[in-house]
């Protein structure tokens, strides 16, 4: 998943410069920034705008359009939980309420529990629903027990 290098303007500029001449460079640059820092700091907006010769408003417009890009740091492990139809048919919404009732973890909210759970729509693992990605590693046939184990491991890791 995302890296955890502390935000650094010079490093950000270097990442931007590396791809500024690539055709259609906006998304590749934003991906690089998020991968390095774990989120897209607002301080890069003028730098990206300058490098790509677009306005700051356009740059922010792109960042805010795509669900992947976070504008503030997300802490802990990242669980991308699929909540599309195939996973619905196998009870993903039960896992969402289990997370909230049993572990007080609300999906798509920062809760400082050591585990950030994010909604995604389809991971292409629909024959083994419900599906998720834990820090980029695929999980199929997810159930309550597995959720409990993931939460326990994430909290053990951050305490």
């Amino acid at each position, binding site marked *: 998943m995302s890296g955890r290098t502390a935000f650094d303007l010079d490093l950000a500029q270097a990442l931007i410069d590396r791809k500024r001449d690539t*055709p*259609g*460079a*906006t*998304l*590749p640059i*934003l*991906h690089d920034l998020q991968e390095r820092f774990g989120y897209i700091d607002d301080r890069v907006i003028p730098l990206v705008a300058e490098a*790509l010769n*677009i306005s700051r408003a*356009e740059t922010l*417009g*792109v960042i805010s*359009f*795509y*669900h*992947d*890009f976070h504008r503030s740091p997300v802490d802990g492990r990242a669980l*991308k939980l*699929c909540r*599309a*139809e*195939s*996973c*619905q*048919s*196998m009870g993903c919404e039960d896992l969402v309420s289990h997370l909230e009732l049993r572990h007080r973890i609300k999906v798509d909210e920062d809760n400082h529990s050591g585990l950030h759970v994010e909604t*995604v*729509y*389809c*991971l*292409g*693992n*629909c*024959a*083994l*629903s419900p*599906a998720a*990605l834990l820090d*980029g*590693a*695929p*999980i*199929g*046939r997810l159930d309550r027990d597995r959720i409990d184990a993931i939460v326990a491991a994430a909290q053990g890791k951050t305490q």
Partner: protein
Amino acid sequence: MSIRVFVPADSSALSVGADLVANAIGDEARGRGLEVELVRTGSRGLFWLEPLVEVETAAGRVGYGPIASGETAQLFEAGFLTGGAHPKALGRVDDIPYLAKQQRLIFARCGLTDPLSLDEYRRHGGLRGLERALALGPKATVEEVLASGLRGRGGAGFPTGIKWRTTAGVAADQKYVVCNADEGDSGTFADRMLMEGDPFLLIEGMAIAGVSVGATRGYVYIRSEYPHAFATFQGAIERARAGGLLGPSVLGSGLAFDLEARLGAGAYICGEETSLLDSLEGKRGQIRVKPPLPAISGLFGKPTVINNVLSFASTPWILEHSAKAYAAYGVGRSLGSQPFQLAGNIRQGGLIELAFGATLRELIEGFGGGTRTGRPIRAVQVGGPLGAYLPESLLDTPLDYESMAAAGGMLGHGGVVVFDDTVDMARQARFAFAFCAKESCGKCTPCRIGSTRGVETVDKIIAGRDRPKNVQLLRDLCEVMTDGSLCALGGLAPMPVLSALNHFSEDFAKAPPRAAAE
């Protein structure tokens, strides 16, 4: 000589522990002093059997599955390296009825080989289509694709050959070939499986397109929810370049074609081709008004062939075996094969490639073996989140473009999601609108505002408020969205809603839940 053992590295297989199994087999073999060559392959698409371990024996490749990492010592004890008996033994994998009954044209090689070995690709018949295209020349290649009847496998079903002929006919200093690998529909995974299991096939198909329309550059836009497919595909591009399949002279033809893989950023709308092009250009993924057609003015304003993964991946077979041989598969105006994807609440989910015309029931009951929960089937959604929910009584509908449309649905990208009798269809209708509201690009009002008003109206119906009036309002809204939206997202979001309302009206007439009653 060492014995070859195959364990998939497909991300679905990984999701149920394929890496652990591969490592355990390696450790076990070393501990026993046995020479085993472990090959990581794509998946055969029999996902309920994953992790599926295969061994090359005198009798052919035999399978064992699903195998847990704790079971590998047992496998060695049972002599699996020579095809020994074991409770999880499946016999020859090619003879498993689920696979034997298929007509695999596109997925013939998937799961057999190391996906990143260009030598293996050649040895298993790869590159013959491209070689024939180079021998035929551009014009005849485009005509061959046109004559095959191949229609866009992304969902719209537009003839691929027409797109190619249009781009080929435009004079320009630069043309592009773009692959839409933004496979966002729930219940679909064929593109992902192909990019992870047989990526050179997609590269070969795109190279055929490139040399025949005169495009020298190509892009593959892969969704970020597919990190493994992206990594595998990037590896395949590098190897294709090193092997002369891509670069300044494709297979020594003197014709240039090169590819780049680009990562999406979590936006369903980018599966719409014009949104995808804007996203590739570095903008918000908003749809474009057509015309101009991308074939004439596409990426960076240049003529662009844009097709789905499976459309490109069909062309090597067509070129190798002829348009006529391809058109012998299928029915009516739906020619060739379609990789169907069986998903959701299903006992034996997986990839089923068949000629068009098989029925939903053959797929769900014949291949899938019914629901995983063992409860009766209540609804089947075909064609992704914008496809119709069909009741049990329509399961005998043949799966081809025209028959599905006649049944009030659509085939889309070939995904089939099964629901048992616990499903609440009013909730599913609400989700269809909520999804559209979240994923709308915002360019047109019917989609941007209509989807939100749709959620509110379904909520009122569920809560039991003025039901007849609100059901009528919902139908009116669906009409406005269908007729007034700029693209398929707003235009088709009413399809799951109306199908739920028409086939499962009892779910919209239930006593309101206490919490929702005011």
